[in-house]
């Protein structure tokens, strides 16, 4: 029974994609309906699975099927496994279950919301096709039972994010952002690819069930263990936008907002943290890997939060906040408790996609991303949107009863036990989170309305497809918080610290942004040194630019000229031209004068005569 459900979840996305592609041009209008229906089917199937295995009985369930027979022992004698092959299959255990329900539910709500958001866009069919293809690859990634299949769908997810970021490909910036996202992901995936191959060669099996830390420790020496751990973590860094590879996420906002809600806040970027939790034994096998994960997580959290404080574009603020929250989750895993990281992942997925969808509502209505303009155009009149915005931002900054508080609390506890330096970093991050959340809310809510933009009338279907997802996501974030909580122990001291952070962060934001117009003038007047650096995004983008343009392409250019001049010119053309020149030289001999020919003949004769004389010493 489970296998049937798993197959339905997995293939519903693919079926939707193929159906939409095969639709004749005339029937393209019903594409959204197909997309939404099949994503609902997937959500229902995963809900059913959740109910069947409510408290984890009968798990883990595993189905695997040999996909690629790789080799035998002749190649690498020291491999424990006799004839090892690469497998493809499903694995179902508590972690997968929560993740699959999260993915399918959010993708259903986003598809529903997209019906509202994309109803004027002409190429809607292609959009829903790609969205369903995304849910297919994401479910594949989540349900896979070995590292290689994760990598397979990892790349497919990267592809769909490329297609969806570059959905409006007429826009030059969207196309470049899409390419940038794919190439940066690819750069990180190289490490992942190499890590998988090393594990395959040295350890022999890629199944998560076999990757136990003791088994790994026996076979692999500590140095290679760290190497493999860091390499696989490199892949995670790419997908979950960790420090050096976070540059693509803010640019990914070029895509439609529901895409950002689904892919760039909840599911895809969470795939990295999911993998951290899934293959936790691989990382926890060596302490240095955990340290690396912790430090990279902290660095990401700090940069994300810092950059979010100065952004004017609503989606960019949320994007940077996602980067910093992902940094937090990685720190949690780095601190040794991957359950805390995963719990924060699930709660964050819900309220961050809620935030993105609300920003979608604002952008759809006011056709601008800039929070100051939204404020001026009467952002606060849209009661519903402001309410959800407040709910989302408060849960993001960790107000006690809401989802954010519980998960962030757990993370802070975990990091506190690990070491204090990172704990202080985490605190500072949550302080910044509170600051930019309140800043955004205040600028929109308290903006003095100049040119009011009345919302154009909407049909009932559109209203439903707009409000239902928001409502459900909000409730689900609360449900996830209470249901998914691993173990609740009231830690009074932690409650105090988070409350203090919330008040100080919020207070500072209120102080500065009570009157948005004045704040804007002050901002425009003079930029402090710190703001200038933040504006330039710590010069990371410029570093990438330099690396790619000056170094990479310069080498390519040099090689190209080398290829043209040396190999092509010198070796090939020169040899042929020299042969031709030789030919012309020989032609000079044929100058038509008979007697010259005779003379040459005679000289030949004389030479032969003297050679004959020289060699035959008059033997009779």
């Amino acid at each position, binding site marked *: 029974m489970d296998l049937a459900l798993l197959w339905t979840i997995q293939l519903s996305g693919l079926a939707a994609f193929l159906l939409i592609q095969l639709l004749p041009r005339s029937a393209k209008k019903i594409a959204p309906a197909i997309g939404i229906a099949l994503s609902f089917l997937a959500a229902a199937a995963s809900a059913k699975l959740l109910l069947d295995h409510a408290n984890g009985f009968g798990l883990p369930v595993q189905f695997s099927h040999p996909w690629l027979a790789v080799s035998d022992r002749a190649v690498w004698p020291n491999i424990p496994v006799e004839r090892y092959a690469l497998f493809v299959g499903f694995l179902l255990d508590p972690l997968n279950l929560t993740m699959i329900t999260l993915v399918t539910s959010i993708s259903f709500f986003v598809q529903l919301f997209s019906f509202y958001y994309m109803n004027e866009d002409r190429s809607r069919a292609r959009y829903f096709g790609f969205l369903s293809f995304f849910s297919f690859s994401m479910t594949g990634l989540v349900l896979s039972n070995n590292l290689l299949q994760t990598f397979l769908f990892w790349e497919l997810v990267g592809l769909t994010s490329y297609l969806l970021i570059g959905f409006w*490909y*007429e826009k030059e910036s969207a196309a470049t952002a899409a390419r940038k996202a794919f190439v940066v992901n690819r750069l990180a995936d190289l490490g992942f690819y190499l890590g998988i191959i090393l594990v395959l060669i040295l350890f022999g099996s890629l199944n998560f069930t076999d990757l136990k830390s003791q088994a790994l420790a026996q076979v692999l020496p500590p140095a290679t263990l760290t190497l493999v751990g860091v390499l696989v973590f490199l892949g995670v860094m790419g997908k979950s936008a960790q420090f050096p590879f976070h540059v693509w996420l803010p640019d990914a906002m070029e895509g439609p907002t529901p895409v950002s809600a689904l892919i760039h806040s909840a599911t895809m970027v969470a795939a990295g943290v999911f993998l951290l939790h899934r293959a936790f034994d691989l990382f926890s096998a060596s302490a240095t890997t955990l340290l690396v994960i912790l430090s990279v997580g902290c660095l990401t959290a700090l940069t994300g939060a810092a950059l979010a404080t100065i952004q004017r574009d609503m989606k960019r603020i949320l994007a940077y906040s996602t980067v910093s929250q992902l940094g937090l989750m990685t720190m949690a895993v780095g601190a040794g408790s991957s359950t805390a990281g995963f719990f924060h992942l699930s709660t964050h997925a819900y309220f961050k996609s809620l935030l993105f969808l609300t920003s979608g509502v604002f952008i759809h209505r006011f056709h601008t991303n800039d929070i100051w303009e939204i404020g001026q155009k009467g952002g606060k009149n849209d009661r519903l949107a402001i309410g959800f915005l407040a709910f989302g931002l408060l849960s993001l900054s960790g107000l006690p009863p809401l989802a954010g508080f519980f998960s962030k609390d757990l993370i802070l506890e975990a990091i506190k036990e690990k070491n204090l330096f990172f704990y202080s970093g985490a605190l500072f991050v949550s302080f910044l989170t509170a600051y930019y959340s309140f800043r955004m809310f205040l600028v929109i809510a308290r903006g003095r309305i100049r040119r009011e933009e009345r919302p154009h009338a909407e049909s009932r279907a559109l209203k439903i497809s707009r409000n239902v997802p928001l409502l459900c996501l909000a409730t689900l974030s609360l449900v996830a918080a209470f249901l998914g909580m691993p173990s609740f122990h009231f830690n009074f001291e932690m409650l105090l610290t988070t409350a203090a952070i919330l008040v100080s962060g919020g207070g500072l934001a209120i102080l500065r942004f009570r009157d948005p117009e004045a704040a804007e003038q002050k901002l425009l007047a003079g930029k402090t040194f710190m703001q200038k650096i933040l504006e330039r995004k710590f010069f990371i983008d410029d570093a990438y630019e330099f690396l790619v343009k000056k170094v990479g392409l310069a080498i390519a*250019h040099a090689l190209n000229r080398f290829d043209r001049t040396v190999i092509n010119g010198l070796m090939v053309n020169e040899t042929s031209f020299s042969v031709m020149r030789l030919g012309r030289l020989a032609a000079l001999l044929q100058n038509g004068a008979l007697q010259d020919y005779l003379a040459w003949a005679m000289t030949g004769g004389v030479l032969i005569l003297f050679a004959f004389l020289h060699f035959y010493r008059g033997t009779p």
Partner: protein
Amino acid sequence: MSPFPILSAILLCPVAGLILVLLTPRKFETAIKFLSLLAASGTLVLSIILCKIFNTADPGFQFVEHLEWIKSYGIHYSNAVDGLNVSLILLTAIVIFCGILVSWRVTYRVKDFFANMLFLVSGVFGVFMTTNLFFFFLFYEIAVIPMYLLIVIWGSTNKQYAAMKLTLYLLLGSALMFAGFLYMYSLPEARTFDLLTLKQNVHFSPPIQNILFLGLFLGFGVLAACFPFHVWSPDGHVAAPTAASMLHAGVLMKLGAYGILRVAVTLLPEGARHWAGLIAVLSLCNIVYGALVATQQKDLKYIIGYSSVSHMGIVLLGIATMTTVGFNGALFQMFAHGIMTALFFACVGFIYDGCHTRMADELGGLSKQAPMISTFFILAGLCGLGLPGMGSFVAELLVTIAAVGTYPMIGITSITALLITAFYVLTAVQKAFYGPVNPHHADFKDLDWLQFVPRAVLVGCLIFFGIFPSVFLNWVSLSTKILLGG
């Protein structure tokens, strides 16, 4: 002799088509096209049957056909199929079938065009099937001449130069190859051109093996666009007409790699092991160098030309590892890359016919104007950069596993090529297909039904073998094990 000589049937189909085409008068162009299509589909059907009835459990040669010709010199017309060449025969059949369909819009001297195509393909089939060195060389020469004619008459940019360069390079390769064969023949205990007898009763001493292998490898390497000799293939690709470059990149370059496996490695294993290090380094240059230079190209066909050089590097790397995994990967890459480049050239050819330009900057916004051809090109590009679910990914995976296993440093650096390939493929896609629609080619129409079929067949093959690679590996793994003395 098996009851129905399927191999000779596959070979004779294009030959019969050729004769029929030559007989039909020049003005019945559609008749000529249908005749050649009939011949091509004949070979395709027969090859599919061959693959189906090919017994994957039997490691030895199957469907052996043997005709004594010149007994005293050991030259006989003998064909046989084992793991190595069954996939390549299928590849050739698919590529020629799609090639004929793609060149349905050729209007200039139709009869000669299709005659040359069939002539070329029968040469290639001959090479893949034969187990006699003499016929190997004979069919190889048959394949080279029509390629020259196709480029010189129907080619595009600086076709004379490119055609001459291509032919001279290929003949250089064949000369080296033939020198090797003659030397092998001249050895006292050999005195035969037949591969099987050579393998059984001739034992080459290591020093001879080293020199002989080097000669043969250089001969075949020129054909497989090994690093220093790769220059002819991008120019050849650019100048050739669509169908010719499909056949050329898709199939002709695989002749070299197949030759290395079938002749050089089978007869001279120690020589192969001796030079394996050098081949690995050269193939690394191939991969990284080809990819880096491809980033600098403006013309789409040049990009694909250099990407073929880079992908052929992966094949050579697979061979250099001298392991069963490496060989399986190399053979798989030969097959997958053949189909992928054929698809690439089919798309670029169609775009060139429509917009009369191949410069990526001059083409813009093709996705909006011609969604189908753009999707095919993007699919081919994605397969090129090794997207999972497509054939090339599995091939690169196998080769990289073997490479990291035997030459760790080379294996790791070869992976960077995946990144560079992603970069130049996506830049090309962005310049040519995304961005605002370029008014210059506003009248460019999308694929009609007839042109849709060949490209769909190619994409179908890529995805089928990407999802079910074990089908391919069952054909191949037994004979590569035998090849390495398993």
